[in-house]
């Protein structure tokens, strides 16, 4: 009634992209830029240290954590699939597996840091390697923590039966973030443990 008079209004339904997905994609773009800067600093300072220790001397490849984190992406896809098909029990199961795998990854990182700080005496202020290593891996770990916290909130709601199939899109947005955290680990792992070591 109060619209602008038109001669040829398209009849097909007016579809727009999901704002949750667009916003998460934007956030991921911004976060990627932040990680790019930290990765660039890590690569730039490789081998420029005036004092030790060097990555080769002290770093071990975190196989367990990497396997857990990467496989968690697979389980979160199962969870997404479950909620879109309204299978709530399956959703809760796969969701909890994802959280568990993320937590194992975090535990693995904690173990690695404990060893480096307490036994190797490598801290963030020891040398360039320490500064760039803890910053980059720590930045990623903080993203894992944020992802886990958000997933735990969803998990709590799921246990109390408050998550419904209608929430599938929000779960999808969160899963998108988790996939990003995973993808960043592939880059960090390659840079720190493969190229840098």
């Amino acid at each position, binding site marked *: *009634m*109060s*619209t*602008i*008079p*038109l*001669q*040829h*209004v*398209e009849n097909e339904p*007016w579809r*727009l*992209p*999901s*704002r949750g997905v*667009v*916003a998460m994609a*934007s*956030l991921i*773009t*911004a*976060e990627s*830029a*932040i990680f*790019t*800067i*930290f990765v660039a*600093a890590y690569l*730039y*300072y490789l081998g*420029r*240290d*005036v*004092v030790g220790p060097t990555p080769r001397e002290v770093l071990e490849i975190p196989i367990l954590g990497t396997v857990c984190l990467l496989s968690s992406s697979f389980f979160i896809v199962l969870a997404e699939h479950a909620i879109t098909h309204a299978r709530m029990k399956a959703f809760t199961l796969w969701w909890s597996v994802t959280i568990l795998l993320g937590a194992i990854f975090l535990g693995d990182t904690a173990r690695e840091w404990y060893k480096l700080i307490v036994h190797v005496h490598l801290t*963030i*202020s020891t*040398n*360039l390697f320490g*500064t*760039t290593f803890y*910053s980059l891996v720590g930045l990623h770990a903080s993203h894992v923590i944020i992802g886990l916290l958000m997933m735990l909130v969803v998990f709590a709601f799921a246990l109390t039966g408050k998550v419904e199939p209608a929430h599938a899109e929000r779960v999808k947005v969160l899963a998108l973030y988790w996939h990003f955290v995973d993808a960043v680990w592939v880059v960090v792992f390659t840079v720190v443990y493969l190229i840098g070591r």
Partner: protein
Amino acid sequence: MGTDTPGIPIGGGIEGLDRTRPHTTRGTYLEVVHSWVVTVDHKKLGILYISYALIFLLVAGVEALLIRIQLSIPHNTFVSAASFNRLFTMHGTTMVFLVGMPILFGFGNYLIPLMIGARDMAFPRLNAFSFWISAFGGILLYYSFIGGVGLSGTGSAPDVAWFAYAPLTEKAFSPGHTVDYWAVSLIASGIGSIGTAINILATVFCMRCKGMTLMRIPLLPWLYAVVSFIVLVAVSPLTAAQAMLMIDRYLGGHFFDTQAGGSAILWAHFFWIFGHPEVYVLVLPAFAFANEIIPVFSRKAIFGYPAMVAASVAIAFISLGVWAHHMFTIGMTSFGNAFFTLSTMLVSIPTGIKTFNWLATIWGGKIRFETPMLFSIAFIFQFVIAGLTGIMLSISAWNWQTHNSYFVVAHFHYVLVGAIVFMIFAALYYWYPKITGRMLDDRLGKWHFWLMVIGFHITFDTMHIPGLLGMPRQIYTYEADRGWGTLNMIVSAGGFIQAIAVLIFVYNMVHSYFRGETAGADPWDAWTLEWSVPSPPPVYNFASDPVVSSRRPLWDLKHPEDQDAPYE
């Protein structure tokens, strides 16, 4: 004013739209303040952004005047060396982060939902969060005047220049906390900027009214989407670099610690990866205003809409590959210098396309010289000059002479004042009636415009010359035998003329708010959706969701016999 366009019932906007605005009764003083603090309405947040920025514009303007007084004669002792260094650091930081970005985001906030026919931004609460965290950043920066201790151990406020080159910012050379205030406040306002950028992208792509396909979005929302993309990929690196600086200063890290093998160049790279795209973050909204204002006052559709969109996207991508033209003297290889010379020159192609499209829009029109149009015309003229000095600075070999001289200062003020501030004034004259329901006074507007133009050219045309005569920037005084004295006196005098112009404008804003002529919904006889609703718009914007079939829905409405759609 254009209110007399015959035959179109625009006052109540589109037929059937409620003409009377639901007038909320004013509460107590405290209730009014409370309503502004807790608001999530994009229009109120837009006004908050704009007011916040205008206050800091005055603060940074006063800082500029103090700088100009100090430099007006050689060996001046008006302010101390320490104070001077603080003044130019704060002036630059304030103008970019507390004036430029907020005022542009403010207009975006206010206008984008109205122009795309939406009732609010995609994420209203994120919007409020972004504003308040940015505001926190700004207040924190100015709190440093009380809380920080400077390079010399006696002062306050950051004194490391707005690009804050390492290792000057490291603990060894900047004891005290001024650099910390600088870094933390920019991280805070950076988070706000990223939040707003996400919001704008989601709004433009997901909140459009029916019929508004990508190629029918007005150019202002389009350009804001491009700006938001640049913010995402350019402001984030700054946030990352600031985090590294804080790791150095508080955790004993070595990112920029040259004693431990760290690099001074790395900061320069990181800063300019942000710093150069930032210029386009500021200037693209100015282009966006011009894209809306110039057609309306030329009475013609924008020339080459697809080319305008493509040029903006091209600017966004090219701008990400030019940063090292700020570093031609830092010791890059000749190949690196050549590469960044070429990439920088490439920017002039899309910006040239824009300039020529504005010219073509004016060409064949019936130009009305209202105040917003006057500022827009001055903008085109000044932007051409700024672009040409920009090309001169991209000539890396010549840049060895002009870099860090007053030639550079003149160039970027030509962009920031001559293009951006002029377009902000144009936008304020153009949209103030929509925001407040009152027209700004036209006679005062003309005074403002002419004084501003005269002051601007006295200051910034002259300022190029001391740069070519060897005067470096950021010096608190200079030797009398260098022959820079008279020129600096002229530059300072022009600054004060601009200050008078701005004061007239401030008076006009206040005066017209109470006494201004009532605007009506569509005072300029314009064509985009924001002019279809009353001024000021109701909280819900549109009584019912609009549907459009072209880029200029109100043109279609006013000229049913000559619709746009077949020509687009």
